[in-house]
């Protein structure tokens, strides 16, 4: 059974100028197996981020169905979707979105606050993972004191802290220089493998996509 299955998924937006509906995703069908790493590539405006948002339950499709671990999310309430996100999905964005008021460790622990019963091992796990990404000595630092690459490493650990089944990464190295991007991509894949999670990454860098287990292209809302 695939971890995620999208069936005939469609999504459109209203054009603010003409008021007409503009299709973004058209009849997308996709199966993602557990532990798989998948890259979605395509030009700007092709629907990559929309697809990622739907996968992450941040958006809902107009038509079609999405199942997660065999369960349909169609009838889920916002509260249930939030629970899915906190327990099963980790996000990595192009911008790190770290809370400037919180330390590195606190930023990592932020998702644990959303859990109904946070694990008492979360702190230990966060420290271990931060050590793993080379930030052991910076756990008490504030994001403003970190470099761009370090901030994104914190974001990686934050995405993994609740031991999700799926990591969704939206151009995770888009704001970094090429050298840093390569290093972080390798780190991300290493983390994916070591934690046994599924990774779906949206990128428009073909080289980065090639590092993933499977590459899909999206063009004018159609996945190929």
């Amino acid at each position, binding site marked *: 059974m695939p971890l995620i299955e999208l069936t005939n998924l469609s999504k459109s937006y209203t054009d603010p100028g003409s008021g007409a509906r503009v299709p973004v995703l058209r009849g997308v069908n996709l199966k993602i197996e557990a532990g798989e790493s998948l890259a979605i590539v395509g030009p700007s405006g092709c629907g990559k*981020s929309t697809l990622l948002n739907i996968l992450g339950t941040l958006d809902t499709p107009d038509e079609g169905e999405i199942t997660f671990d065999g369960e349909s999310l169609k009838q889920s309430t916002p*509260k249930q979707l*939030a629970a899915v996100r906190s327990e099963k999905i980790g996000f990595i*964005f192009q*911008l790190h979105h770290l809370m400037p008021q919180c330390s590195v460790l*606190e930023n990592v622990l*932020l998702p644990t*606050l*959303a859990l109904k019963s946070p694990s008492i091992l979360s702190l230990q796990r966060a420290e271990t993972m931060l050590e793993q990404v080379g930030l052991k000595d910076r756990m008490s630092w504030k994001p403003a004191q970190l470099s761009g690459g370090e901030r994104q490493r914190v974001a990686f650990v934050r995405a993994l802290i609740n031991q999700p089944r799926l990591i969704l990464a939206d151009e995770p190295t888009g704001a970094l220089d090429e050298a840093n991007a390569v290093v972080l991509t390798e780190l991300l894949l290493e983390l994916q493998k070591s934690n046994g999670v599924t990774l779906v990454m949206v990128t428009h860098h073909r080289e980065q996509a090639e590092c993933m287990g499977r590459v899909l292209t999206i063009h004018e809302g159609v996945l190929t």
Partner: protein
Amino acid sequence: MKLKDYVLQSARYYWRGHLGLLFGTFLAATILTGSMLVGDSVRASLRRVAALRLGKIEGGVIGGERWFTENLARKTKTVPVIIATGSASAANGKVRVNGAQVLGVDEGFWKLSTSGKALAFDKSSAAINEPLARKLGVKVGDTVLVRLERPSAISRDAPLSGSTNQDVSLRRTVGAILSAEDFGAFQLTASQVPPDSVFVHLADLQKQLDMDGRVNAILSTHFAPLRARLEEQRTLEDFALQLKHIDGAQKEWEISTSRVFLDRSLVENLWLIKGARGVMTYLVNGITSANGATPYSMITGVDRGHDNEITITQWLADDHKLAVGDELKLQYFVVGLGRELKQQSASFTVAGILPMTDSKVSKAWTPEFPGVSDVDNCRDWEPGIPMNMKAIRDKDEDYWDEFKGTPKGFISLAAGQKLWSNRFGNLTAIRIPDNGQTKEALSNAIVLRLNLADIGLIPRNFKGEAGAAAQGSVDFGGLFIGLSLFLIVAALVFAALLFLFTLERRASQIGLLMAVGWTKAMVRRVWLMEAGVIAIVGVLLGVFGGVIYTKSALHGLSAVWSGATQGLPLMFDASFGTIFGAAIGTLVVVLATLWWASRTIFKTATRDLLAGSWSADAAPVNKKARVKWIPLLSGIALVMLIAALFVKNPVAVAGMFFGSGMLLMIVGLLYLRGWMRRDSGALARTLWQIGSRNISRRPSRSLAVIGMMAGGIFLVVAVNAFRMSAGDETKRDSGTGGFALIGESSLPVYEDLNSKTGWDAFGLDEKLMPKVRVVPFRVKEGDDASCLNLNRAQKPVLVGVDPTKLAGSFAFASGSWDKLSDASFVPAIADQATAMWGLGKGVGDTLDYQDSAGNTFQVKIVGLLAGSVLQGKMIINEQAFLAKYPDAAGYRFFLLDAKPEHAAEIAAHLTRQLEQRGLALEPARQRLEVFLSVQNTYIGIFTVLGGLGVLLGTAGIGVLIARHVLERRGELGLMQALGFQVGSLRAMILGEHSVLLVLGVILGVATASLAVIPRLIESGGGVPVAFLGKLIVAVLGFGLWVCVIAVAIAVRGKLTEAIRRE
């Protein structure tokens, strides 16, 4: 990390961003706490005044015109006091104070003061309190003259109650001047204004008033046991009853009264004594028959018999040569309203003739008539009725010498009662068989049948009443909250606005938290907790600010706003409960405001929040819904305006116009919002056109500027237009009712000042008096319920008037004078302000009073006068008044109708001629203005606080503009890079925001103008246009100045660097 750690960390990290929230909360807490503490302080001040005026007194009895024995007080270990009203003047006679409280007290009285300090002053001197000393300009050792009325056992309105000219003058040296702490503030009515009091030794005053051993009030340090104790110790004397043995053919005891007529409430019980028979003896003006006329004779009604038969004495039979079967006629006066007497007559047939030696022919039938029984000659009689002395013959004098008041004829009791029953009673005595009892035993047995409560001597809980009066007083806390409401709203808007700025800046954080699985409710809760932390700090600071606010407000209320507190010495008071309540209240209101203000951001999609692109104006707009509001609200406003044409209640009309104005202002804001959202599609070719695009770029912010200005100006202008003035006082529907003069007298005026008799009684000018019409009111003392009394009146002054004399006068908010004619209950009319604010009542509500027999009756409000000079009183029909208070003699409150050009001369003449009665008159307009000054003071307070609110709002506008411009620094840098001068850019920004300010002013003034139309019509243009004009110019000027400052701050530095940063 726990949630609270995150909250605290965020609050700490973003403290600069929360300064606005902190300031807004601080301000709201300051105002709310301060306002509530003003309420606490005024209540505490009233309680302090109550404590000073009552000392240790808890309960007591006020007899008023009922006098009882001093012994009753002695036996019940209470303090006997005489409480009377009179006038006091300095020895030089230059200053006279009317309505002074004259007190007869002994050493026990001083022990009741808070300090319990004994006061010693010479027996031949008097003590006065500080207010009176100040008014008279006297000091210890000076002489004061006190004038008061000698009390009468019976109402001076009663027929045969004697002369009305019974004034007593006391000339006393001032032995002491009493401060409020030394019981100088003593008074039993709930008022914050200390009375003008003269304290005379009890025995001295009793002697001067011919009331040895009698008092009319009892004071006690206890209330609960007082009634039982008094009833236990009562004697016949306390009921003004006498028991006398009659040695006639039948041995009898007679119960009579010094009041001439026995109280009906007592008769009801005395009548139940076995064998009791009633007696009604009356002085008739004349007895006429075919053979002659006999003046001024007593006739007694007793026993059963034919109603048209009379048994006469031999003396009368001889005088008229009458025999059995002959006819005779009795002429007599019956009492009408006041001392008005109507002569009537009745015919009788002689049924028998009694020899003068008959035991029935006795002067014992005749009660002690004041001015009659105690004089030697008929020609010296002063019975209090008009007498024709020429009609008295020598033989009548001889009869008086030999037989005194022996009746010359006897009719049946039923006939006597039919002819002479009046509101004072229907029996002059009750006789009961002598069964061998001793006088003491019989007296005790009779007393057991009577209760002091039957004659209205019911103990009152003065302490409880004072507490209720202070507790239910004008709620200055609520008043200040109301008056500061705009300031509070401005503070909340300010706080919410700046909180929203923070939210906008941190929108992506909200998105992130939602993305990592926090629920919307959880994120929102965390945000409110963060705001709550700041708000708690603001509230704590605001508590201290509130204390300063209260002290400032109390200072204002003691100085420039003293009209609102009417002489109340204010003291600061703060209770923990009030502060806690205000703090929690502020916190709840602030958080609720933030919750409401932030609702749109939490409706925004997470992806948009993550993109950081959220703003209040980016939220989806339901255009259709908004468009529907404009016609709907306009329609409601129009309906209200049309309905106002058909409504007569001026307050309701004002409310409708006010509401319409407010609705139209909202319509205007909605229209402007729609206009801003509309894309004209026209090409912007000038800098100004580009600037005007910015107005509609953030419609919510632009509307906030317009709304703040419009709302502030609307409220300040509309409320200020309701500053009251007396208007044209000659108009019948004005607040004066068209009456030129108004006044009170210290002592009752019994005479009709519209009649020749009345003029003669006071030597009034017969050429001047036809130019005035006097409308007299009877007065039952009580609490002043006008806006001049801060206490909640427990028993408002009740006045009785003939409503036909007021027909067509005064404007009614509800009802009319005709409503007082309903005899099925006791209808009353009150001034609207009195009913609403003084009593907390409206039409249909009732108030409980006790009549002179101690029975509780209800007075029902049937009408409300609009803004009248009759504030503070419950006005009932004179007939209903007399039915309930037959003893309340004379008139003590007057309205005088005269042409303005004669008013001063009439006032001076009447004041001079009725000096003995202590009459004080003043222009009715002047009295009305005093009442109106209270309301105007409230408006003054509102103007100051509302003005502060507008200034705060304007300052908020400055912050908003600065923020708006700071956000645009990048594009401004671009424009500079494209070649625009910084000066031009400043002008553009200033122009954009000036337009918003001007639009706000126009909208506020236009809609406020609608709201003040009724006021313009009512006052004939009496709206303070110049004042309001200056206010608007000042607000606009300040607003523009704030714009200039905000723009200068936001545009300073190198704009071009902003492009690089972007």
